[in-house]
């Protein structure tokens, strides 16, 4: 399959996204904002429609509206600190409503954005993905302890002198750009799953913050590689295949963990009996 240039590009960009999506996704899961991917990706569709109607590259429209949406979520989160999910539900509803409304007047359909088009990535999208990869990795290296502190407790982080507002702002902008780009490449309906499922798998087996991040990246990259390969040979949609691979890994890990715990309990029980 690597004799095709589009598959080489798909693997390059896919692996880049598979590394950075769970990095940001894990922090969002720890902050109990795991639905943010869903909310922003649906809002991205509205940006795509606006871009198409205005005659601009729809990716720019998606990025702009995702940035606005994520800033709105931050403001709402401050106003209703105990109900962070309300802001996500409002943004998601607004995104779905607006994209539904605009889809009827957009000059073309935007189904590419619903399920992604990882096999038809433009050079602009490749450059954006590489730029974003560098930005997210640098952000994590520089603000590793700050992100961990904020994930634990924003109040404690603020009292310890962590620049909470600044870090949250950068996190929001990077998330917005990533979701907009990933919506175009792997699909608006799928981006959220790659944001959350690898972290969910990782939470089942990791024993520290550091290993949770590392395992999430590993599971995400495996899902991407297996999903792309299977989709190529079986002629399936890449986005759905990647998601179902991740779900498959989650089920395997849950079952394996249950078996290991059962054996451990039985061993312990026999030990006490003897």
């Amino acid at each position, binding site marked *: 399959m690597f004799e095709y240039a589009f598959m080489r590009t798909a693997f390059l960009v896919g692996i880049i996204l598979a590394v950075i999506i769970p990095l940001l996704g894990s922090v969002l899961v720890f902050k109990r904002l795991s639905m943010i991917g869903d909310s922003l990706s649906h809002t991205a569709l509205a940006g795509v429609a606006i871009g198409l109607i205005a005659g601009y590259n729809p990716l720019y429209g998606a990025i702009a509206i995702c940035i606005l949406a994520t800033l709105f979520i931050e403001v709402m989160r401050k106003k209703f600190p105990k109900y962070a999910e309300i802001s996500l539900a409002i943004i998601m509803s607004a995104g779905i409503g607006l994209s539904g409304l605009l889809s009827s007047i957009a000059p073309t359909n935007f189904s590419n954005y619903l399920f992604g088009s990882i096999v038809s990535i433009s050079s602009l999208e490749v450059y954006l993905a590489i730029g974003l990869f560098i930005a997210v990795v640098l952000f994590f290296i520089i603000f590793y302890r700050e992100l961990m*502190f904020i994930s634990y407790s924003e109040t404690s982080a603020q*009292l310890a002198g962590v620049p909470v507002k600044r870090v949250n702002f950068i996190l929001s902008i990077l998330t917005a750009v990533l979701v907009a780009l990933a919506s175009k490449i792997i699909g608006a309906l799928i981006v959220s799953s790659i944001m959350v499922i690898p972290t969910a798998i990782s*939470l089942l087996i990791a024993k*520290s*913050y550091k290993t949770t991040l590392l395992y999430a990246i590993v599971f995400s990259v495996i899902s991407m590689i297996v999903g792309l390969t299977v989709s190529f040979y079986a002629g399936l949609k890449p986005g759905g295949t990647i998601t179902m691979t991740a779900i498959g890994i989650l089920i395997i890990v849950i079952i394996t963990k249950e078996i290991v715990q059962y054996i451990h309990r039985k061993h312990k029980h026999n030990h006490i009996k003897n």
Partner: protein
Amino acid sequence: MKSIVTIEDICFKYDTNIVLEEVNLTVREGDFIGIVGKNGSGKTTFLKLLLGLIKPICGRIIFKNKLKISYVEQLTINSFVSFPTNVYETVMLGLYKQIGFLNFANEKHKAHVLKTLKLVGLEGFEKKQISMLSGGQQQRVMIAKALVSDPDLLILDEPTAGIDAEAEKNFIDLLHKLNKQYNKTIIMVSHDIFALSECNRIYEITDKTIKERIKNV
């Protein structure tokens, strides 16, 4: 004993709802102060004012120069459900200021974390995932995180909520030890009067102000 915090006539309101008024309190070095009050009496607002998270609309709070304060937040059942840190990583967070921006923990920091874990009775727990610990042990981790930066004043919000009687007794003994042997000044908010048994002064937030309460009542 020298005073380290002086609260002078502070008041606070949310919109038009006055929560606290004419609150006066002096905290002296080595004090172990308990704060009680009914739900909605203004305990949390008082703590937020003391921590500088909100500003009083009148009055002032004077802190001793270079006073180091550590805060132990109230734990909830869900505090660590989706936060997969181990004990070592969590306590290391307490050294955030000392390590500084763009720096990494050195051997001295690591040794200090281990020493603090020993002090709170959690030696050998470094690699344990915090969500797998009991409520009492989690609370000790939080104390270690607060103590590791060597604060002068320790502020605790409902630290015994949700832990069993034995763990509560052990925890109160630990606070007593920190206060008497390590000279840590402590302010503890609790709805549980038993948890305040080791305090040398107890105050009650009632009728929008703070009043000293006779200890054995």
